[in-house]
């Protein structure tokens, strides 16, 4: 089986041969022999050339996996070869367009809206304050721009991922 996998804005090509363990795996032409076994739940134990690794895998969405290895987190989008590619595999969050969408990083309450529509903002300027878990968290513009739209107001309850503001 051949997979395309998008990670950190790069595409990788993986080939997994056969069904047992150890199984031969190629990444971008580099070969590994991988001994693997499911330990429990999301946990996989891997032995690669004698090295022992633990990996946890959770499927967030169709073909989109979060993989934890040795305390590090990887979000990977897989595409099985021969199937129609999804839009922008592996490149989410790495575009450099002029539009910024400020989303709520977690559920919470809007404590303060620090800007008004059409206002110019600089990179790093605070635009909105969300309270969650008893701490106030100021969200900042990542690039300079102009406030296009404000979708919430002070006191609004917001869910994680909700769009709060659009900057252009």
């Amino acid at each position, binding site marked *: *089986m051949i*997979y395309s*996998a998008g*990670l*950190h804005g790069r595409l*990788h090509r*993986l080939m*997994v041969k056969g069904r*047992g*363990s150890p*199984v031969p*795996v190629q*990444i971008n032409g580099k070969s*590994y022999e*991988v001994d*693997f076994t*499911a*330990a*429990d*739940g*999301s*946990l*996989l134990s*891997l032995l*690669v050339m004698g090295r022992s*690794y633990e*990996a*946890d*895998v*959770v*499927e967030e*969405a*169709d*073909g989109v*996996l979060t*993989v*934890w*290895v*040795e*305390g*590090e*987190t*990887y979000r*990977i989008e*897989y595409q*099985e070869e021969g*199937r129609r590619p999804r839009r922008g595999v592996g490149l989410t969050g790495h575009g450099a367009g002029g539009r910024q969408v400020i989303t709520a*990083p*977690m559920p*919470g309450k809007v*404590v303060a809206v620090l800007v008004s529509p059409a206002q110019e903002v600089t990179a790093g300027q605070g635009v909105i*304050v969300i*309270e*969650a*878990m*008893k*701490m*106030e*968290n100021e969200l*900042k513009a990542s690039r300079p721009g102009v406030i296009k739209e404000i979708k919430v107001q002070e006191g609004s309850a917001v869910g994680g991922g909700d769009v709060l503001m659009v900057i252009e």
Partner: protein
Amino acid sequence: MFNKILIANRGEIAVRVIRACREMGIGTVAVYSEVDRAALHVRLADEAYLIGPAPSPQSYLRIDRIIETAKLAGARAIHPGYGFLSENAEFAMRCEEEGLVFIGPSSHAIRAVGGKTAGRSLASAAGVPVVPGTTRDLTDQEVVQAVREIGLPVVIKASAGGGGKGMRIVSTEAMLPGAIRATRSEASAAFGNPAIYVERYLGAARHIEIQVMADTRGNVVYLGERECSLQRRHQKVIEESPSDFVDLELRCRMGEAAVRLAKAVGYTNAGTMEFLVDPSRNFYFLEMNTRLQVEHPITEMVTGLDLVKEQIRVAAGEALSVRQDEIQLRGHAIECRIYAEDPFNNFMPSPGRIRALRTPGGPGLRIESAIYEGCEVPIHYDPLISKLVAWGRDREEAMERIRRALSEYVVLGVTTNIPFHRQVLNLPQFVAGEINTETLESWLAKGLTSDNGAFADIALIAGALYLHTRKRATTSPMGQGGQGDSAWKLAGRQDGLRRR
């Protein structure tokens, strides 16, 4: 001794108190808000009662409900933990009026030293040096005026604050209005009291605190110090005891100052005097926390005492179980506070469901946690989900041990600051013991990077095998999604069968 104690708290500290009670043969009564029905403190207590909806002003801060519940359950005493009502003099007073024992100092003592401004005045009177600043609660306008008198930079502080909440450093006058608003708002939410005051900001000093314990018979002891300089946004992140900056002479001077202050107000039960210590080893009283501290386990590990049991015994009228000359510090302890927050996304809180949990084991560790696999970390409360504490014969061993333990600690489902701790523990200043209250912030100002990439190939392989195995196991087309756990388990079982 009490036959039953109500714990007016939640999370790891409620669990901590329940364990102490259980060891003493005392019954435990938990209270919980609607979102905490399946929380660990509810599961572990002997009894549990619902006291209201999730927001703490409607549950964990409801004095009336809590007192009513104690009476209903027949609990003679209440342990307030830390945070919530633990430093609320009115709560302590209401307990006293209702014939319940508040496990902490008297309401009188809380008023006298707990209010930070009052504490500062008293400390001065007791001959303990204090940080320059105001000695009473201020209106917004008075704050502006005070800042002009004291001179920038200053710290705006909640008078009822604690645990690093309700503080803002202000270095320019333009920052002042926002800082005042934010501090008052946090203080209201966390402590039910918006009062604030102003202190001069001393800059790069060490934050070192002294633990005291006092009984109702006039005995007061100090239990060494805790080094709490590693802070982010005035929130302690890693604490250790002893501080390798504190020698025996300084420990005695600070300890004796703390005892003097405690005696001056007739203080009883556990309390902590927080100090700033400058590079010349001058110390300045900051405030007194009239309750158990989050970081009390490191003191327990080096002294061998159980502070919660000591609190309960003292509250029941017993004498302290140790004299000052019997207290010996052994080895070194370090605590990492594990928060549900994303260190690589501006430390945003990360509530959610714990999907997988693997806790470290082995020698020299202590884990104070309220999470379990499958539990919810609610959005409504402090993001502290666990405390990892390591003891070693010396500082080096304690550091090695907590690094090792962090490498075993896996919490999935919510994002935690474990990767951040792993980086801090390798910070050269920290390894060398050369830290102050600005160490973390100035390091963070350079931008925190996740070091990600070292295991990219392994992650890619693991993901591919996941999909590959699931495909085999289910023979359904790829991408049906969401059944990750069962796919592994199924594949694992098939694998097991095939091999036999």
